């Protein structure tokens, strides 16, 4: 089966600019996650969707980050305005395998200068 697709693969922006990441999940996977992974750290959950509803966004910095999942399929994550500390890999994942294991995309590596 096709995997989780993310784009772009890399993005370099200056602080205070805005940026958006896109995720196309595995077909039929209802639950979608966005994780932030800073170098040397484990993935940190930003937001979890069940179809197009939000399950958990307690760690999403809502003053600058927003996410949506249109029609319960594709999802976008936006940062506006970006800060230096937002430099990280942004990983999209979907839940499959009997609703117990995550399938990750390759991520978008963001550098904020």
């Amino acid at each position, binding site marked *: 089966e096709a995997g*989780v697709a993310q784009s772009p693969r890399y993005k370099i922006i200056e602080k205070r600019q805005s940026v958006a990441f896109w995720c196309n999940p595995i077909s039929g996977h209802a*639950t979608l*996650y966005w*994780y932030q992974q800073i170098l*040397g*750290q*484990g*993935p*940190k*959950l930003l937001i*979890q969707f*069940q179809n197009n509803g939000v*399950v*958990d966004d307690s760690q999403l910095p809502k003053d600058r980050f927003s996410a949506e999942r249109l029609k319960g399929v594709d999802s976008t994550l936006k940062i506006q305005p970006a800060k230096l500390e937002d430099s990280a890999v942004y*990983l999209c*994942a979907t*839940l499959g*395998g009997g*609703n*117990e*294991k*995550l*399938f*990750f*995309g*390759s*991520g978008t590596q963001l550098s904020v200068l």
Partner: protein
Amino acid sequence: SQKIEQNSEALNIQEGKTATLTCNYTNYSPAYLQWYRQDPGRGPVFLLLIRENEKEKRKERLKVTFDTTLKQSLFHITASQPADSATYLCALDTLGSGYSTLTFGKGTMLLVSP
């Protein structure tokens, strides 16, 4: 506070030996615990899941144990190979609402030398 802790230092072992990685957690009562492998520049890949009522799980050269009293999981790779070199992450279901909300540890980098 809630924590998930993995071996903070990289683990260096020789090919053929058994690698043992540790995951400790506090103030969680997970229904299950998972282990993932992550290679540089890639997203994590699922390896094994073990439930709270299971003591041990095996898959080929991999073995996971889960002690809910000690709040600890051990991940073993037997007959290790250089291709096993990667970062290994443990993850817990932390929301406990049936929504599979996974919180990850920091990961342990494993280096297997020929």
